[in-house]
């Protein structure tokens, strides 16, 4: 209530001063305007929450000012001050959108009460707006999640079905390569061409196999491998595994893990897989001389992680884990950053900005799948030219959820008769 923005409009300066002084005593400071034009000019510069507006003023009268205010600043509430004899003005004012009217001489308690009510109305509207905004965000997020899930089901179905023909191509190629090595074919014309062709087939099968295996990683069950792990050690271990690339590229890795992050109950292999994936991405995006920072911290249950604050929902967090605590892992790089138009797509399967054959476009997709299954969230923030932050939040204790459809063959394939 103290930081409410008040504007007092009346042509009688003495009256304004008295009211302003009295309001001040009660902890409310009010701006002052001597006529309608001045009022509108002041609103132009600084919006007000509540305008206390005298109706009877020379020049532009209160009702006219009210029309202007309501047209331009829908959120601003107006309390009209009318002369004792002109109640119709007040009624007309309310019809035109005023919050209420008071008759002069004004009783300060009444005025205060009205200001308070008007302010409460503003806050109610703001809350409603925020809620609607939040709900919309959640709905959008749901749509994205569902879309990713169905894409995942489809993609893993494809992967399963493709593995068999891949195995056949692979064996056939290997067999032909063996034949070419036989003595009877030692003098075969253009033998090198055949060998070159077979080599390409073999390499491409290997590439396809990497894709199918990564996709199948996405649906892999992991509930059997939950254990208690020390977060600091996990980070240490992951960094060790990628250290060679870091040294080769002259990138500094900074660890800001706090021992207080302590132990968490999760799947160490899967979490390490995600960390390594994020680190590899960071290394790839960062130029020599750059820096990658890994930090961990503890989050109390209701506090949304800093990087999610804009869209975090306590309700959702609560639903996801009934425990009291969560931990946060951040991987921050000083790399090239991700353009805004790509930011939404990076968790989609097969989205990649690397050249063909270099990346499968599945790393983040799989990582997100893993983190979600571990009861957590993964979010990204990025600025082109400055760097990227990936932020993982995980419950300290992950309870295994029921996963009814794990490796089951999707209906889609049955429908196709495959």
């Amino acid at each position, binding site marked *: 209530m103290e930081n409410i923005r008040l504007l007092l409009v009346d042509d009688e300066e003495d009256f304004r001063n008295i009211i302003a002084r009295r309001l001040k005593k009660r902890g409310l400071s009010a701006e002052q305007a001597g006529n309608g034009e001045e009022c509108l000019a002041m609103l132009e510069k600084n919006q007000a929450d509540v305008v206390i507006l005298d109706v009877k003023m020379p020049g532009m009268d209160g009702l006219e000012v009210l029309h202007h205010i309501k047209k331009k600043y829908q959120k601003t509430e107006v309390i009209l001050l009318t002369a004792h004899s002109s109640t119709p003005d007040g009624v007309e004012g309310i019809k035109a959108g005023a919050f209420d009217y008071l008759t002069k001489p004004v009783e300060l308690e009444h005025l205060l009460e009205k200001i308070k009510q008007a302010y409460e109305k503003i806050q109610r509207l703001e809350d409603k707006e925020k809620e609607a905004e939040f709900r919309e965000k959640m709905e959008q997020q749901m749509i994205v999640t569902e879309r990713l899930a169905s894409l995942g089901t489809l993609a893993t179905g494809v992967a399963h079905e493709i593995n068999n023909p*891949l*195995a056949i191509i692979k*064996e056939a190629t290997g*067999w032909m390569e063996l034949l070419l090595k036989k003595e009877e074919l030692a003098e075969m014309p253009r033998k090198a061409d055949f060998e070159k062709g077979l080599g390409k087939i073999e390499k491409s099968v290997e590439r396809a196999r990497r894709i199918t295996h990564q996709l*199948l990683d996405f649906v892999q069950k992991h509930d059997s491998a939950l254990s208690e792990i020390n977060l600091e050690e996990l980070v240490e271990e992951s960094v060790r595994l990628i250290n060679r690339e870091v040294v080769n590229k002259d990138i500094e890795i900074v660890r800001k893990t706090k021992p207080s992050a302590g132990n968490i109950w999760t799947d160490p292999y899967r979490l390490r897989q995600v960390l390594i994936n994020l680190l590899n991405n960071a290394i790839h995006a960062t130029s020599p001389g750059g820096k990658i920072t890994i930090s961990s911290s503890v989050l109390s249950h209701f506090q949304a992680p800093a990087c999610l604050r804009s869209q975090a929902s306590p309700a959702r967090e609560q639903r996801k884990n009934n425990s009291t605590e969560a931990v946060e892992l951040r991987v921050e790089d000083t790399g090239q950053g991700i353009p805004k138009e790509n930011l939404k797509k990076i968790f989609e399967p097969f989205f990649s900005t690397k050249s063909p054959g270099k990346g499968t476009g599945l790393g983040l997709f799989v990582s997100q799948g893993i983190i979600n299954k571990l009861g957590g969230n993964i979010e990204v923030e990025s600025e082109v030219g400055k760097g990227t932050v990936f932020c993982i939040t995980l419950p300290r204790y992950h309870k295994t959820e029921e996963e009814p459809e794990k490796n089951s063959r999707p209906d889609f394939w049955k429908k196709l008769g495959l």
Partner: protein
Amino acid sequence: MIKIPTKILVVDDEKDFVEMLSLRLNETGEKVTPAYSGKECLDLLEKDNIDVVILDIKMPGMDGIEVLKEIKKRFPLIEVIMLTGHGTTETAVEGMKLGAFDYLLKPADFDDLSEKLEGARKKKDEQEERIRKAEAKLLSRKTGGVF
């Protein structure tokens, strides 16, 4: 040096795969018999002398695990290498607990396969060698150590 061929039974419902893998293994000097179902596999084991079975887990009808159990019950000396789809490591572990020698993910790396085949063959040979020695001991005891 002449290689003693390992007698391998490849079991998979995917006919082309069996054919190609057989051709390739034959070319490296092994002796491969194809089978396209669990039942056929068991029938063939009854007739033929086999060292190692390469067994696909995912087959219609009798699946790989059932076949494995049956093999280990009826032909305990025959070694089994399982071929599993990715993401079914649990099945592979289950299979190894049931007595399979090892497992490979499909599509398998040929060098890995060769290595595992050799290991399986070696294990079977050694086991048979021990049995022979034990039998010899038993025989010499029965005959009163006359030899």
